């Protein structure tokens, strides 16, 4: 049986989604994305400056990768901004997918959960397939799922921090409560081991950008993450042992030479 990730009915083999920002050069971006094996790449929108050829070079490079596009609404602070940006994304990129971001605090770019729920409802009603970037709050997750979200993107830690999973308990609670929802940890992953941890918990996928783009060698790091994600997923499927507080010998001691039973 194939082991895939479901994004609103689209089955993906790779459990890595990858961003297109912050790379040292367009070529390194392209090579790192290819090396990652990701089937989904995120991108965004900005005002066009014809003197800079309207971002044509970037757009052509992204198209040449042949991946699913996941536009975000980065930088939006209000429902109106986010909804407008999603509508523009759909027209430009010809996709109903939107990674819905609504900033609630500029210090840590924490999503605004209240406005996020409002914008999600509007966009779902307009036929968008909303992938909301949310905190790890279980109740907000419930509101989003109740509205019809089939995918949630809770943070591991704030965007670009590389701190990993700050609250594994909260993420596990979301996993356990919504076993049918596709969970993608978005933001905060800094190292391959963070991704492994997420996948071991049963998180379905991770979205990476800074961790790859800001590595000394982004292409090698993309490969490292791909292996770490596979490893974490297989660990989850294999089922981890139960943790214990006391030692238990791993080597059978019966009939061992030099064994001295005390007492």
């Amino acid at each position, binding site marked *: 049986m194939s082991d895939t990730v479901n994004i609103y009915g689209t089955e993906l083999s790779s459990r890595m989604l990858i961003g297109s920002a912050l790379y040292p050069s367009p070529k390194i*971006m392209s090579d790192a994305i290819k090396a990652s094996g990701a089937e989904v790449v995120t991108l965004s929108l900005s*005002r066009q400056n014809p003197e800079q050829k309207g971002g044509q070079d970037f757009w052509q490079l992204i198209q040449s990768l042949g991946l699913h596009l996941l536009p975000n609404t980065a930088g939006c602070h209000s429902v109106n901004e986010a909804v*407008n940006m999603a509508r523009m994304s759909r027209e430009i990129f010809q996709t109903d997918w939107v990674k819905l971001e609504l900033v609630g605090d500029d210090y840590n770019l924490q999503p605004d959960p209240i406005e996020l729920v409002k914008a999600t409802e509007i966009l779902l009603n307009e036929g968008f397939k909303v992938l909301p970037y949310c905190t790890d709050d279980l109740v907000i997750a419930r509101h989003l799922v109740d509205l019809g979200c089939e995918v949630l993107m809770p943070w591991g830690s704030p965007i670009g921090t590389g701190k990993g999973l700050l609250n594994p308990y909260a993420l596990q609670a979301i996993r356990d409560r919504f076993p049918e929802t596709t969970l993608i940890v978005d933001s905060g992953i800094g190292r391959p081991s963070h991704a492994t941890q997420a996948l071991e918990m049963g998180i379905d996928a991770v979205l990476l950008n800074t961790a790859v783009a800001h590595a000394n060698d982004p292409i090698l790091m993309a490969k490292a993450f791909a292996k770490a994600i596979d490893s974490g997923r297989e660990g989850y499927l294999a089922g981890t042992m139960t943790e214990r507080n006391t030692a238990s010998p791993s080597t059978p001691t019966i009939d061992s030479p030099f064994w001295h039973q005390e007492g």
Partner: protein
Amino acid sequence: MELMDGIDLRQALTIFGALLPYAILLNESFLPQSEHGITKLTDGDKVEVISAIQGG
């Protein structure tokens, strides 16, 4: 940008040099492509041409 009276949005975009693919915000609201050719601009209208950039 100064434009002639009565110009429609599509003509304005050509003068501006907008490159496809793009989407339009007219006075901070999304205006679908189907309406570009039938929307006349008036004094003070704010047009923003939006296109793809890198994102995470």
